[in-house]
């Protein structure tokens, strides 16, 4: 065991920090605060700069444009990006690329991985459909082979990055007669393909998501990832990685540290917030939870570097961290009392409105990426051998 960074890891972290001190400009910070998860020219430029460092392939093989480092180094990078308030790595990097590396054909790898590491391609997750949410395997969007092309028809929802990404990472049914999990494939579809219509859906968290319609969309046969009808396994694998990505703690720890700082310098009713025992107890409990949350994330990185896909541990990390996000936002808004309801546009907002924003963002992370209910069953079934729920 070793609960500290190695000298190499410390050096890596310093390199990331040094990069951030140069590239995370005040103008960019302002835009990020105003835009949240959305993009802008400055944000896109920053992402390109990150990719230019090779950091969109930290732990990918060198032959596909990666740096061949470990999952732990990727986690350190993500934690630093988040803690600094910078955009984190996209799921294309943390969750989808690894599936191409593991399961893609040689052609897939050559086609897509260098594009990703150069920051030239990002994939929107085309999974959910109106009647296939948690029950994803009921999806009906279909792809039929017509000569050298797939013809795609159907409809996706909660397609959050569709208006920003270059491609769809699209889950489609390629064998309508197979059992529902066995007839699914993954095809990469250029977002500007004729026949694609994107309709925005605005969420409570101010994140834009989309409905995307596919009408006779044609893509080359080679855009199929891995083998036909094996898509379910890639989706499930990608979800395990996605859960780890949803369970990182950098932004939470930053919010907490800033809250502690706020409490130390804010006086209501003649008393500094941090002097109040009830505030101390809540902050202490949050500190305990955050520490465990951080340990969960370090643990999954450790296990990945040991060669596995830690399904149980990643699910624990996802459940615990996303529920902690709700708790931190909820308790934080209570601690700062009436100021907790002020939006960032109000100059009196505590922590620039990041607490109420976090409160509105929190639900999404609990049901997104596999609901926490599904996660708990995974922990019980895959982690502890309980029989499948019925």
């Amino acid at each position: 065991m070793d609960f500290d960074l190695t000298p190499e890891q410390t050096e890596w972290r310093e390199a990331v920090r040094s990069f951030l001190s140069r590239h995370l400009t005040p103008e960019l910070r302002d835009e990020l605060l105003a835009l949240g998860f959305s993009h802008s020219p400055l944000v896109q430029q920053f992402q390109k700069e990150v990719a230019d460092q090779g950091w969109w392939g930290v732990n990918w093989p060198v032959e596909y444009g990666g740096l061949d480092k470990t999952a732990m180094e990727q986690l350190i990078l993500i934690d630093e990006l988040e803690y600094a308030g910078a955009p984190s790595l996209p799921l294309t990097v943390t969750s989808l690329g690894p599936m191409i590396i593991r399961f893609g054909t040689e052609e897939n790898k050559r086609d897509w991985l260098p594009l990703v590491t150069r920051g030239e391609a990002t994939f929107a997750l085309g999974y959910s459909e109106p009647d296939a949410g948690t029950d994803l395997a009921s999806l009906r969007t279909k792809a039929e082979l017509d000569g050298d092309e797939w013809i795609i028809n159907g409809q996706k929802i909660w397609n959050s990055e569709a208006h920003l990404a270059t491609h769809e990472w699209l889950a489609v049914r390629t064998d309508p007669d197979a059992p529902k999990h066995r007839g699914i494939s993954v095809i990469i579809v250029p977002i500007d393909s004729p026949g694609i219509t994107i309709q925005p859906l605005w969420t409570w968290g101010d994140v834009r998501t989309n409905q995307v319609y596919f009408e006779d969309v044609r893509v080359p046969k080679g855009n199929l990832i891995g083998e036909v009808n094996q898509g379910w396994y890639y989706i499930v694998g990608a979800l395990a990685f996605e859960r780890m990505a949803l369970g990182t703690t950098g932004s939470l720890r930053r919010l907490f540290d800033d809250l502690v700082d706020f409490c130390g310098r804010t006086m209501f009713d003649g008393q500094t917030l941090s002097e109040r025992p009830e505030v101390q107890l809540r902050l202490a409990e949050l500190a305990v939870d955050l520490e465990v949350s951080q340990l969960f994330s370090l643990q999954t990185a450790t296990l990945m570097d040991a060669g596995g896909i830690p399904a149980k541990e990643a699910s624990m990390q996802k459940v615990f961290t996303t529920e902690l996000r709700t708790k931190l936002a909820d308790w934080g808004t209570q601690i700062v009392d009436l100021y907790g309801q002020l939006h960032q546009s109000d100059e009196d907002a505590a922590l620039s409105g990041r607490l109420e924003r976090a409160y509105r963002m929190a639900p999404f992370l609990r049901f997104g990426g596999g609901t926490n209910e599904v996660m708990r069953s995974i922990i019980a079934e895959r982690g502890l051998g309980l029989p499948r729920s019925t």
Partner: protein
Amino acid sequence: MDLQPSPDEALLAESARKSFLRDCPMSLVRELLGPESVGHSPDLWTKMAEQGWLGLGLPEAHGGAGSLLDLGLVVEESGRALVPSTFRSTMQAALLVAGLGNEEQQSELVGRISSGLAVSAVAYTEPQAIHDPRYLTTRAVPGDDGWVLSGVKSFVANAHLADPLLVVARTTAGAPERALTVFCVPAGTDGVTLEPQATFAHDRQFRVLLDGVGVGDGAVLGGPAAIGRALPAVIDARQRWVALLCAEMVGGAQKVLELTSEYVIGRVQFGKPIGSFQAVQHHVANMAMGVEGSRLATYQALWRLANDRPAAKSVAIAKAWTGEAYKGATVMAHQLFGGMGYVRENDLHLWSEHAKASELALGPRDHQLLKVASELGL
């Protein structure tokens, strides 16, 4: 001992529910929350006045009728329907007037409010003084024709519509028991500047800057005898406000429970309604326990206040429980609705905002727990 509403009480609640369903549909709620609106509907207001709801809990001698508990039952329904906050802020002001105003003021103000002619509100909180009256700094000093007010109030609901706005100010230094006075500041008085606060529930709260605001001697609520003596009435009124806020939360929480039950009964995944999954059932059952406890604790607080029983502990218990239960219901509703309840076009988030804003108003959970502890003699 009888925890169920009497037939009259049930009828009143039923009538309010039906009226709000008709007169305050979600389309109107959304319109009133929007940036184009002032956040108040005179039409709806008139209808509420016609039903006598704006006189509930107020002295009969001045146009009031019905008990605080009756008012609570209507406020509960207003929370279910997300009726704009002018109802709450005006009734809060009315209760303070009823507790502190002299005959003439009661006659005029309670009369105007109960007949729907006035919207009002109380300006108590200041940027650094959220709850504790010892730290209020807004000053009123004698002037040429009465009093001159200076200071900053914050989180004042509907200050842009309030006529009058009741301002709690310090008329001498020292202990608040002998220093606080309430002034009726008419709309449009010189020296009052309103700065809207960007609350996430869009519920029209304002920072109120008072810069040498002159009011007459008649503006002192309760008249000369009440100068420096307003604190007991303010404390008493705040208890009533808290109980009414709880009632509003009960209505909202009940609605969220119903919306969620409906959704999980109708939403099919894996070939069956998700409401048949144990995990979903148990989440909903927990929500239901929270809501049921909210209702009982809130009714008890209202009943005790309406019947002049000591109520400080009951009120604090109701707020501590109900705030958590309502907010918890919305948090879990989002979990069960998933994306469908997270898009802005779905109404769910309107209650989520109302729940969080209400939890924060008039003291969040720890504040109430410390009050309970104090009532336990700790």
